């Protein structure tokens, strides 16, 4: 039956022609955003789409990973970083339109899932006691090497003198959203994650949390920037992000707004 391989070959060729994705993403600007914005930015972009009819594609990741992808040529048009340094790096490399705008200041929280022996209200001192009692199974933070929220968590743990002792217990999320996922599941006693994530409806009821004083870590000054390749739609979304309704949502998700 020599016709069967031929038929298979014909089918493959047909699929090949039909299947290759077109430039469907061309009309929708792709926005790269730090993971602490996972829930807030979805709400903001929905409002933007309602008002303007313009849709945007959101890609979340750690600011460091996204900045690296942008410098390697990823097709993002707008970048919302969780800190300033990555935006400055891209600006120095000539990949941005300008120096960008500060859009929010982030906060970190100590989070304990339901059933954890840790009481976030006791602060990092409580974590120290738990650690001394050998009751810390795992503790989740974002990877400090490329996630700003991980850096803030590391700074707070260092200031509390816990960094060295906690090392063997740390689980590192690729970004703060994954750190939150690690903190809520498995056998972790908790973690240090973004305030904006614990305020999201998806996380309510999954545990308790307490804010870590913002004097315990360098401020998470979150800057966004329009990239060189951006079209007009990305520019409009950038403006919208600085408008009243976007600022209201940022505030509701626990961000401190720049003046």
């Amino acid at each position, binding site marked *: *039956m*020599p016709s*069967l*391989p031929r038929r*298979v*070959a014909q089918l*493959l*060729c047909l*699929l*090949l022609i039909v*299947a*290759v*994705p077109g430039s*469907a*993403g061309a009309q929708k600007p*792709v926005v790269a955003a730090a*993971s602490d914005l*996972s829930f807030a930015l979805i709400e903001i972009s929905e409002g933007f789409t309602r008002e303007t009819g313009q849709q945007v*594609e959101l*890609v*979340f*990741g750690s600011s460091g990973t996204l900045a690296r*992808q942008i410098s*390697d*040529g*990823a*097709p993002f048009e707008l970048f919302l970083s969780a800190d300033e340094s990555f935006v400055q790096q891209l600006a120095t490399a000539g990949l941005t339109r300008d120096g960008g705008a500060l859009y929010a200041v982030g906060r970190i929280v100590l989070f304990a899932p339901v059933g954890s022996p840790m009481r976030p209200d006791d602060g990092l001192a409580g974590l120290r006691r738990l650690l001394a009692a050998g009751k810390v199974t795992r503790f989740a933070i974002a990877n400090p090497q490329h996630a700003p929220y991980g850096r803030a968590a590391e700074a707070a743990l260092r200031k509390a003198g816990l960094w060295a002792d906690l090392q063997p217990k740390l689980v590192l999320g*690729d*970004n703060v*959203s*994954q750190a*939150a*996922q690690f903190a*809520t599941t498995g056998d972790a006693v908790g973690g240090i994650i973004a305030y904006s994530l614990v305020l999201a409806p*998806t*996380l309510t009821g999954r545990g308790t949390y307490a804010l870590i004083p913002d004097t315990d870590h360098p401020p998470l000054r979150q800057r966004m920037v329009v990239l060189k390749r951006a079209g007009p739609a990305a520019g409009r979304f950038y403006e919208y992000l600085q408008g009243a309704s976007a600022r209201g949502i940022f505030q509701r998700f626990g961000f401190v707004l720049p003046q």
Partner: protein
Amino acid sequence: MDWSAAYVSVALGVTTVGLLLPAGIWAGHALARRHFRGKAIVEAAIAIPLILPPTVLGFYLLHAFSTGSALGAAFQQVMGHALAFSFPGLVLASAVANIPFVVQPIQRAFESVPADVREAAACCGLTPWQRFVRIEAPLAWPGILTAAILAFAHTLGEFGVVLMVGGNIPGETRTLSIAIYDRMQAFDDRGAAQMAALLLVTVVAALAVTMALGQRVNRRG
């Protein structure tokens, strides 16, 4: 369920198979028939993506795709956008990662075609091309189909290379396996579960077909 991710996955699988199958049939046939110096080295080189950590492959491919390299710069010149983090770049990466999955089953299939059958065909006056089309390819087709199915299923499951070379761009480089990872991080376990189930069913079905074809070959032998 992220249907655009399912679409990207299927498109990537089909394109990879469509690109690799002709080359794989040629290479598999050549490796089964010819004996030359350094054949063992060629066979080992083909097997490299099988055991190389995907991050190593991803690292080298990302460098090869960057606008600093000759390949990346040429692509940028012609297409106006970077090869990294684009669908064509993903296809190229996936093709490299799947070479052994295509070449090896096809080589085994051609090797199992009995020499006396080929000699008889030659004695009947068939040219090498006629022998290939009328005798060898029909006898080897279960192996060829196995190669196509394996490469397709493996492409659906590929994670490390896709994440490094493709990023996570919706509708362009976000495949199902990346979307599952993405949904988990967004606390959307339901969405992740649906896509995971879809991949599980697809891969089990692919394996069932592959094994059925294998039995068919064994019966014949």
